[in-house]
């Protein structure tokens, strides 16, 4: 199918993008990489009057350490995430997750800001941002505001962005000493949507877990944290007993619904399998993540 007719405007700055949005009398959408928006237009799931092409705004590019965090521009392509040494050193779950994100040709155009703004609960980056404790930088007519990833994802495809606002960057805290991170997912086919995905971010001190943050894909309407499981692991060594206890605790955190592709019970089973695998990997120290 073909997209319904729309007007198009390419802008060179964030201010120009916001102005174009405000000036549109109908519905406008920001176009970054277009790798989710264009299929939606082709299928006529979406039919805006105006596309505002932000894809060439230089200020939205770049990956750099800024104080205690890594600042990643919203236009960072998935292929750049995969290749960035800074991201690899400070947020290796993003590097690992990027390898699962669709296919190489999609990764050449798809952007971090686009993926997070769409907030598909099956996609990898939203879950990673919750696991990392990232902050999202949002620019609107009244200036810039920061929203924690835990508060950004509201419901299915629903975020804290209000119409006209633009996600301009992501801030990821630099990894603490003793950090161990791992991302993995179970999919039917390479590059397909995950049946379940997991971004895990642990901190260990003298063999004891001092902090645990999980972000699950595809098990609820948003990327899901797992508070009971995180609490179960905290304060104990990452040994087989702790992993078994964490797997049992997951039932308190997640209750995926049945859908056409998988029953909720099967999805829950896969989530538990994946949690066990990821924790075993981290426990072995085979994925001794990061810098610092």
């Amino acid at each position, binding site marked *: *199918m*073909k*997209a*319904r*007719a*729309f*007007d*198009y405007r*390419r802008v060179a700055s964030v201010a120009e993008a916001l102005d174009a949005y405000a000036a549109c009398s109908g519905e406008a959408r920001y*176009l970054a990489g*277009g*790798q989710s928006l*264009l*299929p939606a*237009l*082709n*299928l006529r799931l979406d039919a805006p009057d105006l*596309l505002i*092409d932000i*894809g060439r705004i230089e200020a939205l590019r770049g990956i750099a350490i800024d104080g205690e965090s890594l600042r990643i521009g919203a236009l960072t392509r998935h*292929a750049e995430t995969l290749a960035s040494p800074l991201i690899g050193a400070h947020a290796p779950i993003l590097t690992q997750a990027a390898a699962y994100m*669709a*296919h*190489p*040709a*999609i990764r*050449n*155009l798809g952007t971090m800001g686009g993926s997070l703004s769409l907030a598909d609960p099956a996609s990898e980056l939203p879950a990673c941002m919750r696991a990392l404790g990232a902050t999202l930088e949002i620019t609107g007519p009244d200036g810039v505001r920061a929203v924690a990833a835990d508060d950004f994802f509201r419901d299915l495809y629903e975020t804290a962005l209000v119409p006209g606002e633009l996600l301009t960057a992501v801030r990821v805290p630099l990894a603490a000493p003793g950090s161990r991170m791992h991302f993995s997912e179970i999919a039917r*086919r*390479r*590059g397909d949507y995950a049946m379940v995905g997991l971004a895990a971010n642990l901190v260990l001190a003298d063999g004891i877990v001092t902090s645990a943050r999980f972000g699950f894909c595809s098990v609820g309407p948003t990327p899901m944290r797992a508070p009971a499981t995180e609490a179960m692991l905290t304060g104990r060594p990452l040994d087989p007993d702790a992993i078994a206890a964490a797997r049992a605790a997951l039932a308190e955190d997640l209750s995926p619904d049945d859908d056409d592709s998988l029953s909720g019970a099967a999805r829950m089973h896969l989530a538990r399998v994946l949690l066990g695998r990821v924790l075993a990997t981290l426990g072995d120290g085979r994925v001794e993540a990061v810098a610092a």
Partner: protein
Amino acid sequence: MIAPQPLAVTVNGSPVRRFVEPRLSLADFLRGDLGLTGTHLGCESGACGACIVNLDGQPVHACLMLAVQVDGMRVDTIEGLSDAGVLADLQAAFHARNALQCGFCSPGILVVAHDCLASWDASGTVPSREAIRDALSGNYCRCTGYEAIVDAIESTARARRNRGVAA
């Protein structure tokens, strides 16, 4: 009334200027306006990979781009890559290994394989079959000729590596 937009793009090395509707996809522009029908359209949602072309040297889905987005950029289609001769050994290997079958998916697969072979070549490695399958994960072959396709790419990588070592 939505006005057509001016578009200036380099396609297969030649400058092209046209006015296009904003909603026109790059794939439809290449096929309909320029007659470059080697770029095939299958799913029009980024899953099948038949429409993949190089944009400024990197593979992208031509169905997931608007023609207006590529203003000022360089597009190389299967026709351009084929005429330039850079695919000759790969095409010969596809023929020899019976990896072409109905041919509908071949243009996208050749563009992707060409890109991967360049990076494998540069790193001096012969890819594993798993790495080849991973690289092709965005390309569907409805004839299911995957084994032959992986064979052809693997043998091309090996031949290029051997030539590189010899030279």
